[in-house]
């Protein structure tokens, strides 16, 4: 039983990371209808920036704050310079462009920081705390709390502020939003910026438990996709719940289904993606898109 609880707790911790990245994917998908394949690499880039600042003698929290600001500006800049020129074209074109971005950012990171894994000391201790036979670390708790807090902040932003109203309006109906005075291009840039911030949070949270290297988020990206699909591609709360459910599910399947073991966890994530897309494309919390023909 202790082992079961143990697996659930550490599953929740990884699930928090999947959920944060999934939330970033959902934000961009909701506001622009695009799936950003580069989201994982951008998150890793943010983690590298944070690592470099710390390496230059910054304390963790200032470095984290600077990373958040830089990530927001970077995300908005990418939207303005690369995505905006072709966003009215076919969706597949934008998707292929984000794949180009994935490859380029990955290459850039290998170029600058090399491919070897780096130790990333996070703000929370990874030393295990033992409570009733269940071992977890402050890092695990920190990840879960921070991902829940970021969801809460995003929800407050969307539901309670004028900026959030503008973001939602630009996503639902750009033409009418423009007529009512919403600066739609600005909103799209802010959307990408916010997604980059969430990605940065996920990257910095993940870096202490994984080794920081250019491919760090590649598998996490697939888990995040699975989480987003499971929760529904247009539901922010679904993305986070999807992430937590997936984290726990993967851990339990990996522990109790010996045939799967540790190696086939990625395959389970793929099965979740395919299964949900085929059986219930809207996911658990999403809305079914109705298409007019």
């Amino acid at each position, binding site marked *: 039983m202790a082992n079961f609880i143990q697996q659930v707790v550490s599953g929740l911790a990884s699930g928090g990371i999947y959920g944060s990245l999934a939330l970033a994917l959902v934000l961009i998908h909701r506001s622009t209808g695009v799936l950003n394949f580069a989201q994982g690499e951008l998150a890793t880039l943010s983690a590298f920036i944070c690592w470099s600042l710390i390496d230059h003698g910054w304390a963790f929290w200032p470095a984290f704050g600077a990373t958040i600001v830089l990530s927001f500006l970077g995300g908005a800049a990418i939207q303005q310079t690369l995505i905006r020129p072709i966003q009215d074209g076919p969706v*597949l074109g934008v998707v292929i462009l984000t794949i180009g971005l*994935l490859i380029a950012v990955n*290459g850039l990171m290998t170029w600058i920081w090399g491919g070897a894994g780096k130790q990333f000391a996070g703000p929370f201790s990874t030393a295990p705390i033992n409570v009733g036979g269940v071992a977890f670390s402050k890092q695990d708790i920190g990840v879960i709390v921070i991902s829940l807090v970021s969801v809460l902040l995003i929800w407050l932003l969307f539901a309670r502020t004028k900026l959030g109203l503008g973001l939602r309006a630009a996503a639902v109906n750009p033409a009418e939003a423009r007529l009512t005075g919403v600066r739609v291009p600005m909103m799209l840039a802010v959307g990408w910026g916010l997604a980059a911030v969430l990605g940065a949070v996920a990257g910095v949270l993940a870096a202490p438990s994984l080794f920081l290297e250019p491919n760090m988020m590649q598998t996490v990206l697939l888990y995040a996709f699975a989480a987003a699909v499971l929760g529904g591609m247009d539901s922010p709360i679904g993305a986070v719940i999807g992430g937590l459910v997936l984290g726990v599910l993967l851990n339990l399947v990996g522990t109790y289904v010996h045939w799967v073991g540790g190696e086939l966890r990625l395959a389970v994530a793929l099965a979740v993606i395919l299964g949900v897309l*085929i059986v219930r494309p809207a996911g658990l919390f999403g809305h079914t898109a109705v298409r007019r023909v």
Partner: protein
Amino acid sequence: MRVKLIAFGLGVLALIVLPFPLSDFHTVQLATVGAYFIAILGLDVLTGNSGQISLGHGAFMAVGGYTTAILMSDHGVRDLWTIPIAALVAGAIGVLVGIPALRLSGFYLALATFGIAVVLPTILKKFDGLTGGSTGITLFGKPTQTGHGFQVTILGRHLTNNEWLYALTWTIGVVLFVVVWLLLDSRFGRSLRAVRDSELAAAASGVNRSTYKVAAFGVSAAFAGVGGSLLAINVAYVSPDTFPIQLSLYLLVGAVVGFYGSIWGAIIGALLIQFLPDLVHQVPHIDSKQAGPTTFFFGAVLIVLMLLLPFLLRLGALLTNRGYSRAQ
């Protein structure tokens, strides 16, 4: 049409002449280009003509490559005869992927195929009894390898192993190019493009969209299977690292570089995949042992091409004085 025939004739001539001035090493490099060429042709059929994206074509290449490797090392089949079997196995798996793909449109399909390419190496490692796990399967020196068990002679001249690989790959490459050319010019190709441009209009004109989309997946995967099989024969070795996720993404770059999915451009894409690393290392101040710069430029090429697409389409429409429907 005449221009195309002349271009085709010149291309074949160039392929025949090329090995003579080139070194043995460059010859085998060009053989590898041929393997990519065939895989990109497959991607052109799928993405360029049926409008279904695949980020997982490296996985179909892996299926072909492993089919060849397992048949050669465990079942004593000569390398040459494993190629059609690799095509059949990859094609069958392509159909199996194509059926659920019917329900996935646009980027959901991109996502699913991306997932397949990411997951495949872990599956190859898991079933190590069949695939040799992370170590892979070495084919070099196996009695089933042409050049070891068999000697190839053309016009009284013994071919070196690399010349044989070149001749084999490009003979198949040219034949498959003609096959794709005829296929896309036929009722099949027109139906594919009709489905791509408007599923509704195609269905209303009596085109069975499901059949054509799944068939496109099957054909495309079979091509990738042949490419993977030839890659395995060329390098005489397969392992999960022979077919990483990057390969799938580079194939997409190759297809886009080739005039956004034109079968004529496939050769440019294939050359790029093979020679971009060499090209990048020519740039001063770039450490040639570093993988990063090459990867970066692959991505940069794709980004620039996608940004140029709207202008090129407009230019094309101006030059030919007609609407260009492929963008839609």
